[in-house]
């Protein structure tokens, strides 16, 4: 029986590694992963999307689905995200949030705070660091965290605030990053559910359980996610 996983874009690299391990253990389990924005996927699930598991970038979406009766399980936290300052033109490891206000930095890319959890946390962090007002004219907004990274990668924006999981992806890891103190923003609690549809599929439930194993946690941690205790 096939099942489908819907996952937030920031999970892309980490989840691929998890899956590789999972497939090795359960070679007869057939499934696909669809990546997208958490908001879009929530809407889709509410309108009959054939997704069996939903890994959101923010626990509020699974909670909403659960409240509306679309889930088979309680929303569970599977990881906590971190954000970093990243650049591929400057050495970001030496940058701080305060440096972002510097005139030499013309463009800062963050994800759209209105709907992307990573964007909202970036905003909170800059507010806490007291630079939010001073960077207003420099901000450009990506649709999601992956697009934000692309804006920086193209060189059009000097720096960006992106997910640690992305900055650790081999293609981007060549450049340094500055990890933002997680005390400066609310936690990026990432939660998941098994949908109504997935609840009837033992394989889907099995994958959900696999995400709680140490093996999965180790991979997630390698990508900079903090694991829930």
């Amino acid at each position, binding site marked *: 029986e096939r099942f489908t996983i819907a996952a937030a874009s920031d999970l892309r690299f980490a989840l691929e590694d998890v899956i590789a391990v999972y497939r090795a253990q359960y070679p007869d389990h057939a499934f696909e992963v669809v990546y997208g924005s958490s908001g879009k996927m929530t809407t889709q699930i509410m309108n009959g999307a*054939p997704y069996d598991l939903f890994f959101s970038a923010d626990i509020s979406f699974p909670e909403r689905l659960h409240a509306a009766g679309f889930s088979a399980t309680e929303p569970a936290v599977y990881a906590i995200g971190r954000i970093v300052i990243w650049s591929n033109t400057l050495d970001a490891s030496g940058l701080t949030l305060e440096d972002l206000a510097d005139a030499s930095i013309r463009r800062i890319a963050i994800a759209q705070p209105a709907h992307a959890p990573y964007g909202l946390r970036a905003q909170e962090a800059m507010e806490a660091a007291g630079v939010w007002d001073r960077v207003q004219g420099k901000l450009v907004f990506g649709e999601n965290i992956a697009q934000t990274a692309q804006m920086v990668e193209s060189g059009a924006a000097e720096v960006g605030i992106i997910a640690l999981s992305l900055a650790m992806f081999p293609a981007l890891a060549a450049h340094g990053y500055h990890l933002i103190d997680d005390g400066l923003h609310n936690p990026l609690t990432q939660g998941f559910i098994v949908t109504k549809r997935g609840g009837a599929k033992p394989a889907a439930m099995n994958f959900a359980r696999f995400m709680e194993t140490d093996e999965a946690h180790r991979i997630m941690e390698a990508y900079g996610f903090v694991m829930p205790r």
Partner: protein
Amino acid sequence: MLGLSPADWQAIEVTFKLCLYTTLILLVIATPLAWWLSAKRSGLRVAVQAVVALPLVLPPTVLGFYLLVALGPRGVVGQTLENIGLTHLAFSFEGILVASVIYSMPFAVQPLYEAFSNLSRRHVEVASALGANLFDRFFTVILPLTRGGFVVAATLTFAHTLGEFGVILMLGGSIPGETKVLSVLIYDHTEAMNYEAAHRLSAMLLVFAFLTLFVVYGINRRFQIAKL
């Protein structure tokens, strides 16, 4: 082949089917519609003409959202379909086909409307006088004389469907082999920073589109109709 994975080929197949069906269906729908629009001047017809263009002004994902709501299991259309024993249209090939048809409608209707508006009544009268019935007139006179409009309609529709992904992503949910089209695949590749694959597919798409258009436009010009 061409360094493409089976997933790529699957997406190519879906894409090609989608573009082809969309174009064909649109020509079939748009032709009578444009004819009706061009036949007389009336408020109703102008209004319909304006309405046809409306799907264009919404952001594709938003349009996709509304379509999802309408065609999905809880929407008017979807529910009606389910009630009569069919399945709703969200997350299915049929669904993205309907969406593409709606979304590309203005690209088919407008050029055809224009072509029909410019059609000389005399030529149609001549064909009648020579014994051609309505059907015959359409295929032997109206169609050849408005062929340019059909070419514009078909190429714009085809190209636009090829590139569209906002609506499809939302309504289709990028299910491999069903709703995952090439544009969604390329989008995924860029999101995954898998640039090499994205470039390769983009280049292929461009070359394919270029060749198709080159041939279509070339043929269209070769049989240019005498202008007097």
